[in-house]
Structure formats: C-alpha cells, structure tokens
C-alpha cells in the first residue's frame, strides 16, 4: 500500500511526475478495491490543498486547471480497480453557462473541483436557455443550481433563469449560486441567487456548507 499522505501531497504540489509514479506503482501491486478508494480519497484531499493555496493566492487559475487535469488522470488510472462502486455523493449540482454566453473555462474549473469533493455534477454546457435549467431541475432534483457567465450580459440571462425557476415552483428545493467575472453582491441581489463568487474554491466551499 502506498503512503496516502504522499499522494495527497503530490496532488497538492501539482507534482505530476511524482503522482504518476506513485499511482502506477500502486496499480502494479494489484491492490484491493478498498485500497484504491482510499487512494482516490487521498487525491481528493490533495485537491482541497490546491483550493486552499488558491485562496491564499499561491496558486492561480492556471494551476486550478492543471489540478483538474491531474485528478482526471489519476482517476483514469484508478478507475479499473474501483469497478462499479464509487464514493458516496455528497450532493448534486445542475451547472451551466447562462444563455447568450458561450464561455466555460470557469464553469469547468468549478465542475472539476466540486466533483473532486464528491458532488454529482450535471453539466448542461454553454449558452443554455432558461428551459434547459428548468427541465434538468425537474428531472434530477438537485440540491444546487450553479450558473456561470463571463460577459456582463450573462447577468440579465441569469436573472431570467432564476425568475423562471421561481415561477416553476422549483426555487424552494434548490440553492442557487452564480459565478464568473461580472458577478458582484449587487448583481447577486438583482438576480435573486443565494450566493455568488468569482472564486471557484470559495464556490465549492459554499456548496459544501449547503449540503452539510
């Protein structure tokens, strides 16, 4: 069995070579499913370190993107060992870029970070009409709806989306978080979301607080 702390540290340090070396060594020893799940968990803990360093401004968005890639690679190596069982989901998020806006870098970072802490994420994609959010909420009954946008025009689209979620009687059961460059406290009030952030790590923490 590998040193789990070392796995966590390699992810936290974004040390790709070291992480791959440990994981490939681990896989070659024919570990049990339970052991593999522990390693997955150690990787997720590493992502928490990445999030902390991001908030301390030691890491930046480029590093978050790289950490998402690193985690994906790690899961790819470990997946065959895990089989059908997977770690319990802490909650679910319907996520998408509001209509009129086709940007998704921030959304994708938030997605990989929230998946890393155990959320099930339903990613609708970019430029999503109001109806796509409403339909998906009806279908999967998520805990949280996340909306993203880079352009200032996305604020108006987010408001329309929230209004429609309310009109459809779905707001009672979900928390709504908005994120992206133009989002501010005032914009959040105007839109009627429950929380806002321009920082993916903070956004994940807010979501974790909601499903505790």
């Amino acid at each position, binding site marked *: 069995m590998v040193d789990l702390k070392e796995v966590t540290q390699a992810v936290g340090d974004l040390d790709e070579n070291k992480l791959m070396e440990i994981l490939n060594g681990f896989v070659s020893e024919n570990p049990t499913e339970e052991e593999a799940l522990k390693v997955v968990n150690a990787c997720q803990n590493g992502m928490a370190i990445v999030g902390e360093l991001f908030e301390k401004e030691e890491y*930046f968005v480029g590093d978050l993107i*790289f950490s998402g890639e690193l985690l994906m690679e790690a899961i790819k190596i470990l997946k065959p060992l895990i089989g059908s069982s997977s770690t319990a989901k802490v909650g679910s998020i319907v996520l998408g870029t509001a209509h009129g806006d*086709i940007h998704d870098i921030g959304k994708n970072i938030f997605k990989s970070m929230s998946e890393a802490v155990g959320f099930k994420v339903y990613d609708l994609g970019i430029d999503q009409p109001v109806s796509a959010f409403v339909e998906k909420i009806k279908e999967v009954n998520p805990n949280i709806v996340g909306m993203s946008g880079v352009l*200032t*025009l996305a604020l108006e689209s987010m408001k329309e989306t929230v209004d429609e979620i309310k009109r459809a009687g779905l707001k009672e059961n979900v928390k709504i978080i908005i994120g992206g460059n133009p989002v501010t406290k005032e914009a959040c009030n105007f839109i009627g979301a429950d929380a806002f952030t321009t920082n993916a790590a903070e956004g994940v923490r807010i979501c974790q607080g909601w499903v505790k």
Partner: protein
Amino acid sequence: MPDTKALQQERNSIYEDLFNNKIPKRVPINIGLPFEPIAQYGGLDLASAQWNPALVEEAADKICQVLFSDSCPFGGSIRYPSYYQSLESQSFVMGSNGFIQHPEVVGMLPEDYDYLIEKPYDCLLERVLPKQYKALKLDDPFIMAINFAKSIMAYQNDTMQAGMIIAKLKEKYGYYSGADRRSGGFTEAPFDFLADQLRGFREISMDVRRMPEKVAEACEALYPIVLKKGMPSAVDNNAAVFLPLHMPTFMREKDFAKLWWPSFKRMIDEYASMGIHCQLFCEDNWTRYLDYLYELPTDTRLMFEYGDPKLIKEKLGKKHIITGLYPVTMLKTHTKEQCLDKAREMLDVLAPGGKYFFSTDKNPLTIKDIKLENYCAVTEYIRDNGVYSNAGETAGLAFNRDDYKVDPSASRKLESKYYRTWENYKAQNPKVSDLGESKLQGFEEMIFQYLMFLLL
C-alpha cells in the same frame, strides 16, 4: 458650426496635453460603446444589423446627442460576422443572442511546437489557420482562395462603413480628432498570442507545467510576428498600439516572470525605441504585478479593470497614463447618487497630477448592462468637476525614445515563403518598377495584417 469647432479644439488640446506630460484643462473622457449596445439602442435586431454596419448610423448619432464624451463614443466593431462566417470561423461564433464571442479553442497541438519554433509563420498559416477557419480548405485550393478573398473584402467593406460613420460623427459633434490613422496598431504579447487561439487557455496551463522550455521558445519564435502585427506605418506621439493583456493574472508570478514577461517587455521597449507608445488593457486584477508595469516605458497607457485606484496611482501615476477602473456594472446596479459618488472618488484619487483620462473598467456589452441615465450623469459629472486649476504645468515624467535601446540581434526575424519583402519580390521579378512597390508591398502587408488579425 463654430461652437463645434471650438469644442473640437478644446478636446484635441486636452488629449494633446495628456499625451505630452502636461496637465490638461480638464480630465479627458474616453467613452467607447461597442457596436452591439448602439444597435440595441436604435432598436435594431443585432443578428442582422451586424451584417450591415451602416444601419447603426442613426442610433450612433442619437447616442452622441445624449452621452457626453470627448472621444467619439461609437467605435464600430472588430468582430463582424461577414468575414468570420465566410471563413467558417471556429474561434469567433455568434451566440444565441446574436453576440459574436470567442469560445475556448485549440488551434495547435502539442506536437506542433517544434514546427512553430522552427518556422513560426509557416506553422500559423499551414496548421493553425485551417483549424480555426474551416473554409480555408487545404485540399481544395480554389475554394480556399475564393473564401479567403471574400472574407478580406468583407473585412475592408465593413470596417470602412463603420469608419465613415465615425468620421462623420467626429466632425458633426467635434470629438477629439485622434491621431493619424496609420499610427495605431493592434496586437498581443507573444505568450498571449500563443495562449489565445493557438493552444487555448486550458492547454497553455498544462504546457506551462509540462513543457515550459517549449513555451519560452515559442514566445521567441512568435516575437517578430506579433511585433510586426502591431507595428504602425507612421509614428505619432498621440497614437498607441493596443494590446489586451490576457494571461498574467491567471499565472503564478514565477511562471509569469519566466515565460510571459521577458518577450513582452522587450516588445514594448522596442516600440518605445521607435517612439511608439502602447495602450495596454490590464484585464482582471494586476495588483501583484504593479512593480513590473512600472518598468515599462514612460507614458505607457494602462487601462485597468480591477484593483485599488489609490495604490495604482501611487505606484504608477507619475510615470504612466492611467485609465479604466470605474466599474461599469455599477451603472446598472447602483443609484445615480452612488454612481456619482464613485465618479467623485475616481477624480479625487486619479486626477491629481494629470496623466489620467476617464473610462470605465470595460465596455458594456449590451444596452441593458447599463442605465444610460446613470452613464450620462457620470460623464457629465467628470466633465464639470474634472477641471484642473494648474493646467499647463508639467505632469510627471517625460517620455524620451532615446532611453530605450533594444539589441536587434536579440530577436528573430520574420522569414517565410508566405511573406515576401520587396527585395525578394524584385529578385524574382527583376523587371518590376519601383513604382509598384507601394501598391504591391502594401497589399503584402495588408494580407499579413489580416491573416494575423484572424488569430487575435
């Protein structure tokens, strides 16, 4: 209209002072509303109006009547669908609401680095452009030639239509006449050019960690291309080459210092050594890089999006010309009084000592992004209150091109079979008269400019 002429003279003189380290009579107000909000203001359907830029003239004229600015508030667009669509662009596409936007795209694969480093311009034309522009069909040369010709003509047509409206409005309302048209330029830092349409935001973030040496070499390879892309054909102290700065705030300082800054700094110094100024849009929050910005040539124009105006003014205000920082989103989410308070704060902090002109932190994208009434109140407030009592005095440091020396042998030269100098051309066509130079070489330059514009 003598009033208009007098107003234009006043405007020209406050900009002239701004750019020549003098305290102007009042703070110049530089408002630029993009094509989209103006079309919406005129009640035009955006998706169709963009196909005929001449349609917005009436709306642009109306904006000029209600919104005070010293520069013409209508600037046209650099992203019309005619040329992007005729090339089947992947990197500029229309969203569901008619807005042309730039999605995350990858135009160059990791295995292309070696070719980019060896023959940068060839790689851009042969590999990157056909990936981003599907109508540039490498296997169907005539279709490709026709598509390309159509696109470049559409570009000239649309740019000219918008240009004619701007010229008319400048005369009618006495806006700042601006510098010689040939003395401006538009380009990117070498690293940003690589990150933007070549590798994409996501992929470049991997490359910085996985192959930093290749990234550094690629920046060197791209240097002569982006330098030439921005190079004006005439030098004018009032003009500037515009560079939006994309990636630094998303990078660690360590990576920035090693990979982003060196080629960029050399480029700005090289322009300065020729007497050319740059206007940089420092996207996002540059607080942690202010000391780097201080090192740039005197009178570099810095437009900031976010950051502490006080700190920026303290650190940079004597050397550089500052603008931006006024949060455009306030114009929608706050009351008129709050917007005016913010305007007062901007003037209090940024105006003293000169080297400041007013603009918002970014342009509104749609007319719904702002309450026009608030915007009008803010610019009128700046006009009436941004008045200097010490006009004519010296403002901070003076620019001197001789302070900047760049060793030409430090940079690579643009060499490619796809770009011919007049000497090359003459060698192949010895009978050509030099009278043909301005025309043929002019077209050669125009095509280079357009091809690289497609990757900006």
